[in-house]
Structures are given as C-alpha cells and as structure tokens.
C-alpha cells in the first residue's frame, strides 16, 4: 500500500489540493483501506484510494471558508487518466525539493511524501526525536502549501536532495542509501534526463562497494585496500550501463562525471590497475563543471597518482589548507614522496580535525603506523 501513496498524493495535489490537506486525506484513505480491504478487496487499489482520498479532501474543505473555490476547482478538473501518473509523482518530487525549503526539511518531506516512510522511521534514520521530525515535516508542509507548480521545478535541486539522503546511509530500520536509490530509480523512470541517470549510476557504483568499505569493527578500509571480491559486480555492471547510456547523450553534468570516476575505480581488478590518467581527465571535466574546492582537492590525489607525489603536492599547494581532509591528502602524498615523519605529523593533525569517528580512527592508525616505523 505504501508504494501507492506518492501516486495518490500526486493526483490530489495536481487536482488542486493543498499539500498538507492532501496528505491528511491520503492518510484517512489508508486507514479506511485497512478497515475495508480485508473483507472487500478492491479491483484497482490505487483508483480506490484516489476516490476515497479525494472524497475525504472535498469533505474536509467543504467545512472551511475556501469551500466554493475548491469545489469549482474539483469540478473543473477531469478525472485522472493512467497516463498522468508519472507526471503526478514527478510534481511531488519538485514540490518536496522546493528551493524555499532548507536541505533538512526537503529531505524529510521527500522521504515522507515520495518515499512513503512514517515520521517515526525518518526520525529514527536521522537519530532525532519523533516530535522534532514531526515538526520539521509539518513546517515543510506549511512552507510549500502556497506553492503552485505551474512549470517543472529544478531537477538539480531534486538531485541534490536525493544525494543528501544517499550520503546519510544509516542502516537501521531504514537504510537511507537504499531508499535514495529506490527514489532515484523512480525519478529516472519518470523523467528522461542524463543527470538523473548520472546520479543513479553514481549511487549504484558507490553502493556496490559499500560492504567492503568498512571492516568487521566498523573501521574504515581505504579504496586501495578493499577486498574487491566483495564488490557487487551486478550492481557495478548496472551502474556502468546506465552511465554509458547517459554519456552517449552528450550532455555532461557533475553527477555523470563523478560516476565516470567511480566507474573507473570499479573497473580495476586490483588497485594498481586503476586508470589514474583517465580519472585525472574526468577530474578536469568535473573541475570545469563545478567550482567546488573539494573537487580540486580530490583532483590533487589523482594528480599524485597519475604524475607522482611531487606533482600532487604542487597541485595541493594551490588550495586552501583549511579545507576538510586537506591534511589527510597532504599526509598521503608526503608518505608516498618518502617523508614518513612529515606524513605522520599531518595524519595526526588530520585526525584531530576530522568529525567522522571511523575516519578519525583510521587517520590516527595511519599516524601510529608511521610513528612505529624503525628510523
């Protein structure tokens, strides 16, 4: 039943229902379905839900002052045909990622409205109290309640929200990475856009390596040391195929370029076979597409691998040393350049600045490893 929620919600919103009122009506219809369906299952569950939800919405709005206007609106709209379903879900994506929302509100609303998760599930996934998440969602609903989407929203905003969800990746009752992939798949089937495909490919390529990214006690395993036998090759193949189809459209964007880099990593059977020269070329593309200092930092790593640690350090020297992970990158390059003492000091500094527990422990171990070396 959860799978039907976005489509039903989308129909109500398109017919002119206010977002919050539409969601209440859909919830009422779901409760009604739980009561009625066991004894009298409908032939078309979605049509049933739409009919009941719309009736609930009309009943609810009759009571308030906007009654006349809403009824006229309801009157004017023809009943939905099956062909509109994709449009309606898409409309919901754009509404949930509306630029008027803060990133955390947009994420919460997307998981609730498009993903059909309960408030309790979302709160648990983000490790905040349920009451806090309930407020976050209802504020988000109020913010978008006056928004009328008469033209398509910004795909880039929707993609950013989905990537935020993916990067949280907590694995409790709800695995946010898997949920983000599910939602991006849904979006990709509704909209023909190379960057949507690019993001889906990127998520699949990262997700395929997830099991090998941490050790048995949650410790971070760097890419070069990962057990490549544990990579999900079917998922990698799917990501690569989606990426190639997107690249063939010749409308390059950030996500496609990032996915291309991930694909090159996934393609190497052993770390030493990694095609760093091509990876560097993709970083150059990526740097041209974005203004991100993080991209230039990652590019310095690729320079270090493709042209040697001294060239990497030269690329690094052009960047701001307050960037997150700047010291970790510098430490890695200095170690490869044969300066373990400098590297050990930089690893320790990087550890002290890291806000990620697994990353901090990893960097501390790196410093300890170099300090323990006989000199």
């Amino acid at each position, binding site marked *: 039943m959860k799978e039907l929620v976005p489509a039903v919600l989308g129909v109500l919103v398109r017919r002119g229902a206010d977002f919050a009122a539409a969601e209440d009506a859909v919830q009422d219809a779901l409760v009604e379905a739980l009561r009625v369906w066991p004894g009298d299952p409908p032939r078309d569950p979605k049509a049933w839900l739409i009919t009941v939800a719309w009736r609930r919405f009309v009943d609810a709005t009759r009571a308030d002052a906007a009654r006349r206007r809403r009824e006229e609106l309801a009157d004017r709209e023809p009943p939905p045909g099956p062909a509109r379903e994709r449009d309606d879900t898409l409309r919901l994506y754009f509404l949930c990622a509306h630029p008027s929302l803060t990133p*955390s509100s947009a994420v919460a609303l997307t998981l609730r409205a498009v993903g059909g998760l309960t408030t309790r599930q979302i709160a648990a996934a983000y490790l*905040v*109290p349920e009451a806090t998440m309930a407020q*976050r969602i209802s504020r988000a609903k109020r913010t978008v309640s006056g928004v009328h989407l008469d033209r398509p929203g910004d795909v880039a905003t929707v993609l950013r929200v989905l990537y935020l969800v993916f990067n949280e*990746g907590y694995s409790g009752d709800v695995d946010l990475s898997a949920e983000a992939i599910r939602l991006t798949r849904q979006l990709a089937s509704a909209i023909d856009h190379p960057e949507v495909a690019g993001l889906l490919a990127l998520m699949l390529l990262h997700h395929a390596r997830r099991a090998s990214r941490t050790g048995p006690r949650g410790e971070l395993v760097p890419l070069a040391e990962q057990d490549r036998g544990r990579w999900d090759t079917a998922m990698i193949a799917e990501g690569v195929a989606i990426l190639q189809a997107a690249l063939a459209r010749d409308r390059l964007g950030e996500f496609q370029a990032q996915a291309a880099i991930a694909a090159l990593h996934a393609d190497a059977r052993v770390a030493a076979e990694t095609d760093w020269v091509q990876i560097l070329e993709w970083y150059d593309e990526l740097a041209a597409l974005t203004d991100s200092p993080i991209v230039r930092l990652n590019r310095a790593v690729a320079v270090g691998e493709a042209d040697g640690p001294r060239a990497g350090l030269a690329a690094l020297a052009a960047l701001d040393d307050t960037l997150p992970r700047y010291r970790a990158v510098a430490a890695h390059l200095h170690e490869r350049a044969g300066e373990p003492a400098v590297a050990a000091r930089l690893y320790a500094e990087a550890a002290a600045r890291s806000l990620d*527990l*697994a990353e901090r422990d990893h960097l501390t171990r790196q410093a300890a490893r170099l300090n323990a070396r006989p000199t």
Partner: protein
Amino acid sequence: MAKYLLLKHYRGAPAAVNDVPMPQWAPEEVTAHVAYMNDFADRLRESGEFVDGQALAPVGEWVRYDGEGRPPVTDGPFAETKDLIAGWMVIDVDSHERAVELAGELSAAPGAGGKPIHEWLELRPFLTTSHTITE
C-alpha cells in the same frame, strides 16, 4: 543536518559581559531568564532542530575503576576549581553557521537588570558515524 552540543557552564568559561551571580538577580530576572531558555527550546522544537537538552546540578564527582573486586574510587566534589557544566542542549542543524547563530541567541538570555548576560557558551560538533562518500 549536523548535530552540535551546546554547553552552558557554571564555571570554567571566560567571564560573561553582564557577570552578576544569579543569586544576586531580582526574582523576576531569574524568571525571565528561565522563560527565555524555555522559549528558545520551544522554538527549536517548532523548527525541527531540537534533539535533547537537560540542566545539570552544580554538584558532581569524578569516578574511576580501582581494580577487580574493589569499589570505584571517587573524588570531589571540588566545584570551586573544576570546569562545571550547568546544562546542555543538542541541536540538529543544516550548517555550522546556523549552530553559531543559535548559540549566539542562547547567549543573549537576559540576566541582571534584564540585560543580556553575553555569557560564553561552548559549541561542540558531534563526531558522526556516517559513511559519507569520500573517494
């Protein structure tokens, strides 16, 4: 979506601008101060940024394991010399800037004379355990 701990100190922080010990305030000034703090928490609940918060008593002690079969060692309380935490609040916000903004707002709680205390609050980011993609 980053969590921060806001620490309010009884002692140990640099002196506040409006530095009058609370027992020397007028009763209504104390009431106004408490109301400000509660309103602040309510507004964060409303905005979906509140995670948790508690006030702590000014007494406390250090505890240490002292070996198999022996009771833990305790020390103190030595409230006069130690950094003393009065309470804490955990917030979940979109950015570091927002966390600083909220800490600033909390520091403006009214004190003696109904004027802001301008007390120093400690702002500490949580270490996360997410697996953000880095390579």
